[in-house]
């Protein structure tokens, strides 16, 4: 009976895992098909795709050849994604950890009220802040500039809230001991706080990376030059008839977040203070 239960449980889990993995497997399979085969399969003339196949009739690297050698615009879009994402992630991790330290451990007037404002900012949906951000960026003369996406991302409230929760668990006594020993606040931050919130920092890095890697709305609104669009916009352009190339780009687009996840996988298990281990 126990064995049957276990088999049923694993079958169910494998089925659910396959459902979630299907888009990735399908993307991988289609990226190794020829463009003719993909277009035949995804012929939407009757409002429905014609067939769904996971095994290429003939294994082909044509899509990758097109992306890497014949269509440099997709590689340039990939670099636009890198230009937007990497500085935003770096900026957000630095700014958020410093702000979270201030909100979590320093005492200054209106600290909690100010943090409440941060929480409200976090609750606001992105679409609500798009127009005010547009007006601010227009006045700063930053429209059609990568900074239009990087700056709002850097000062996002999400990272501050996440890391403050991590820092809150650090004992005040360790900070007081360091202060008695004559350590500056910056030294306390780098030597005591940061090593203990490593898990939180990696979690923030990963979430922030995925958030900015998949960004669509902001570049569409803030950039007039379509040459500045990141690859996420190219992939979401369903009017594009180059389905095969889109699948190959999707595989290329998936690799960086996947590698970052592998890097931080063990630390994400402990997003809060390391002493919890």
């Amino acid at each position, binding site marked *: 009976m126990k064995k049957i239960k276990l088999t049923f449980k694993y079958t169910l889990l494998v089925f659910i895992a396959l459902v979630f993995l299907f888009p990735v497997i399908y993307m991988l399979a289609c990226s190794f098909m020829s463009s003719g085969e993909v277009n035949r399969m995804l012929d939407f003339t009757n409002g429905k795709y014609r067939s769904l196949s996971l095994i290429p009739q003939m294994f082909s690297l044509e899509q990758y050849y097109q992306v*890497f*050698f*014949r*269509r*440099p*615009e997709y*590689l*340039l879009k*990939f*670099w636009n994604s*890198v230009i937007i994402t990497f500085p935003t992630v770096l900026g957000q991790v630095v700014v958020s950890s410093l702000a979270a330290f201030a909100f979590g451990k320093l005492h200054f007037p209106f600290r909690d009220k100010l943090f409440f404002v941060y929480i409200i900012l976090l609750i606001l949906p992105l679409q609500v802040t798009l127009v005010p951000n547009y007006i601010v960026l227009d006045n700063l003369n930053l429209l059609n500039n990568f900074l239009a996406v990087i700056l709002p991302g850097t000062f996002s409230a999400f990272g501050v809230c996440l890391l403050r929760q991590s820092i809150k668990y650090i004992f005040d006594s360790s900070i007081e001991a360091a202060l008695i020993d004559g350590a500056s606040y910056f030294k306390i931050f780098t030597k005591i706080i940061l090593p203990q919130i490593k898990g939180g920092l990696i979690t923030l890095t990963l979430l922030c990376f995925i958030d900015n890697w998949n960004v669509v709305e902001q570049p569409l609104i803030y950039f007039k030059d379509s040459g500045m669009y990141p690859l996420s916009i190219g992939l979401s352009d369903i009017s594009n008839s180059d389905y095969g190339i889109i699948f190959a780009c999707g595989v*290329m687009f998936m*690799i*960086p977040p996947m*590698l*970052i996840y*592998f*890097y931080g*996988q*063990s630390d994400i298990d402990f997003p809060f203070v390391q002493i919890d281990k």
Partner: protein
Amino acid sequence: MKKNRLKKYSIRAGIAFLIIVAVLTYLSSTIDNMLLPKVKSTDIIVGTLSGENDGNMKTKYLLPLSSVTEFDESGSVFVLNTDDNGKTKVNEISVTITASDDLYYEVTSGSLFSDMQVIYETSKSISDGDRVYVEEG
């Protein structure tokens, strides 16, 4: 230990991936141009073989012999065109051949204009809408 190894490999794979994509991005335009059909083009000359105006209202053009694919009294030529992305493409235009000599065809066409560049030599066969790389004449 196993986790540290995964971290190490992830970092290495990430760096290698970015380097490969960077190299491909740097070379892609070059490779792209290398793979495209190489063509040579020339300006279209407005005029007649005899050098005189025969009173016909249609503008006559002189095109190099190698630029025209002839079918009886008609033919087709390829002209250069730049698309919205700045890529050079070719368009096929039908022409009516009115005369010829050892160097030129005298043609008329409603779609041909004096500011166009006509292709007179190509490294591979081309068809309407193909992207090409223009070599200096």
